[in-house]
């Protein structure tokens, strides 16, 4: 592997001398196309596994194996094409290097080399994409938590707007969603009550992959209904998107292969670490009172994570919902902790900031009727359609997903560079 890149660099020096525009362009392509050894090693390892498993399955069929083969296939194919192109590159370079090659052939080879280099560029990108590990929670349902931030009452009202936006968006996209928790700031009821915290559960598999890019701070700029002088205010609402574990027995469970009882799973929570508190009746309890208080509070002692649920009349259900929420929060925290290290490395090298809950991701400007996403840079001017969860919102979300995909490939490449530099 190491030899490959070394050779190509040598060749490069050789052909650089007859400086022509074409060749200079080629020069830049080659640098991009040469893969970091670590990334290449990983691709080769996967291709070997693919071939080995393919041979095995020919004899015995196993659902798990064939699933793995499916995962590896893309990498194996992309690698093969990239290697083929790479090989023809070296051949061409060999020709150019050879002093006995006549001038005509030399010209031809230089031409070919150029187009191969362009193809190699595309193939390298494809290989990188195929290597991109699928987000581990991609196929899961999710929870969307919406909480007003700075900006007081106006933030609470906008939080309600976002809640409606996502609910409408989900139903438009055919994603099943239910309102898991709805706390109003002061307990007021009805459509426009200011929101303190809302949690939507989007039960459809893949909802996390679809919506995870929505996490972050959403900013609104508008004249609040309560504002008498007509001044524009800026407020913020935080949106948190958590992968959610389907309740046992539901369709998704086999799919994610997450086992609540498997201590290595992100969703494993040791019941001994969780303290349950239920609201107790005042006084003697039992037959003496007929309380309706069914609140349940769970505390994860090692991390001091507290969730409480009191919306339902059923204590049993409140408990189940609280567990769902606790599992999701802890899984997210575990994942974030794991990523923290890598993120620090990335920041040092390419200055890519982590896009997390603390970052301002989007602005909704009512005065200009526009919505701008600060990550993908997209701006759309049909704010109403966005707030109704319509096609414009879809456009924004898709642009962010693309942006995120590109960033992740970039990071993967950088990660490998860091890795190979450290070696």
């Amino acid at each position, binding site marked *: 592997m190491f030899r490959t890149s070394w050779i190509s660099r040598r060749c490069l020096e050789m052909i650089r001398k007859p400086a022509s525009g074409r060749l200079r362009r080629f020069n830049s392509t080659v640098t991009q196309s040469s893969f970091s050894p670590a990334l290449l090693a990983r691709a080769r390892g996967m291709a070997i596994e693919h071939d080995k498993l393919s041979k095995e399955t020919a004899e015995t069929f196993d659902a798990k194996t064939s699933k793995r083969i499916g995962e590896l296939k893309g990498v194996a194919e992309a690698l093969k094409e990239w290697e083929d192109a790479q090989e023809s590159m070296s051949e061409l370079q060999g020709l150019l290097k050879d002093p006995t090659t006549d001038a005509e052939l030399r010209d031809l080879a230089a031409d070919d080399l150029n187009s191969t280099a362009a193809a190699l560029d595309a193939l390298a990108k494809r290989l990188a994409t195929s290597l991109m590990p699928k987000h581990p929670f991609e196929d899961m349902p999710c929870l969307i938590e919406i909480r007003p931030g700075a900006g007081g009452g106006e933030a609470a009202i906008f939080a309600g707007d976002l809640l409606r936006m996502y609910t409408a968006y989900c139903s438009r996209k055919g994603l099943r969603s239910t309102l898991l928790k709805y706390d109003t700031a002061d307990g*007021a*009821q009805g459509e426009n009550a200011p929101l303190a915290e809302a949690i939507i559960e989007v039960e459809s598999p893949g909802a996390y992959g679809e919506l995870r890019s929505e996490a972050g701070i959403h900013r609104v700029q508008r004249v609040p209904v309560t504002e008498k002088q007509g001044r524009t205010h800026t407020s913020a609402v935080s949106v948190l998107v958590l992968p959610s574990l389907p309740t046992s027995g539901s369709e998704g469970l086999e799919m994610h292969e997450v086992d609540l009882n498997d201590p290595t799973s992100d969703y494993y929570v040791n019941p001994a670490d969780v303290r349950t*508190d239920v609201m107790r009746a005042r006084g*003697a309890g*039992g*037959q*003496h009172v*007929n309380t*309706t208080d*069914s609140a349940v509070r769970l505390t994860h002692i090692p991390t001091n994570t507290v969730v409480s649920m009191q919306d339902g009349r059923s204590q049993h259900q409140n408990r189940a919902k609280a567990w769902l929420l606790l599992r999701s929060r802890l899984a997210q925290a575990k994942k974030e902790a794991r990523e923290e290290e890598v993120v620090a490395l990335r920041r040092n090298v390419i200055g890519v900031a982590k896009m997390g809950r603390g970052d301002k991701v989007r602005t909704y400007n009512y005065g200009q009727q526009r919505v701008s996403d600060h990550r993908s840079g997209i701006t759309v001017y049909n704010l109403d359609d966005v707030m109704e969860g319509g096609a414009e919102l879809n456009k924004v979300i898709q642009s962010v997903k693309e942006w995120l995909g590109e960033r992740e490939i970039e990071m993967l490449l950088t990660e490998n560079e860091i890795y190979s530099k450290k070696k």
Partner: protein
Amino acid sequence: MPRLQHALLLQAYALSPLLPLLLRVTRDLPSALNELRWLRSHVINAIPKQSLHRQHATLVKLCRRRQAAEPLQYILGSQPFGELDIRCRKGVLIPRLETEAYSQHLAEQALESKSWNGLKRKLRVLDLCSGSGCISLLLLHLLRRRMGGVDVVGWDISKQALALSNENVRHSLGPEDRGHVRYEDRDVLASTEKDMHNAEAFDIIICNPPYIHTEDSSVSRSVRKWEPGLALFPASQATGPYQSSEALSVVCAVEDIFYERVLKLATAHDVEKIVLMEVGSKEQAIRVVQLAAMFLPQATLEIWRDAPDQISESYEVASILVDDQNYSVKGSGLFRAVVARCNQHQNPS
């Protein structure tokens, strides 16, 4: 009852003019808010296609009823109990959260029990003073998947309770489970030799009897005013067919009359048996432990608190000494149930 603070009422009024009505019963704002939300969604779901104006009028009416301390469960007509939804109606006691907690815990223990695990026959459950049927229906629901299945019998003397429990069979159970439960009109205090004989075969005897002293001041206004005295106060029956024996009157208070009967029904047994009796206070728990020690001398006795599956607080004792015997106390909260386990090869006393 202390008067509500003026500021609290004003705060509630500012949120909704209906909240102060509920606040008079719930005494705290979060509960009042929850109740208002449940009442509102009940109005919307139960009586759809009403004009907004009519809906509001209905809601106001329901809040007024609640203000008069009528239990929310009677107004809404139901109470969740474990995974079940139990219908509630005036004249029958409302299922309590503590009852739900120990029923659930008992079912878990039954499923884990080594000697019952291998048992291929049906597990038999007797629910004395069955009321709405909440306990027996939940046990049936939780135990029906065990290998041998389960059969449940409930006894009560209240016609209204018997009617409601039968209604709850249809309302809360799937068609395949309904054949495994039966409610009978039987007086627990007047149990006959035949009843005693019948009771022998039960693996679980569970009873939430009336246990409150008539003068007890800790009974809430709503309970005293709206729930049936027959379900709460045993004193009215103390002079009936039942006369406490002299020996028992030494340990027993008048509100304990049911426990002796329940224990008597449990004495004859040739199978492993669990007897669970709900109690109303620590003092009553201790008296019931004394009684149980007399009737079931071989049995292992323990006390369960309100939340038997929860970790105890540091100030909660894990055992208690009664007549020089140590009994373990499980869970967290107030003393709520006395549990006796009788092993298989034990002669009836």
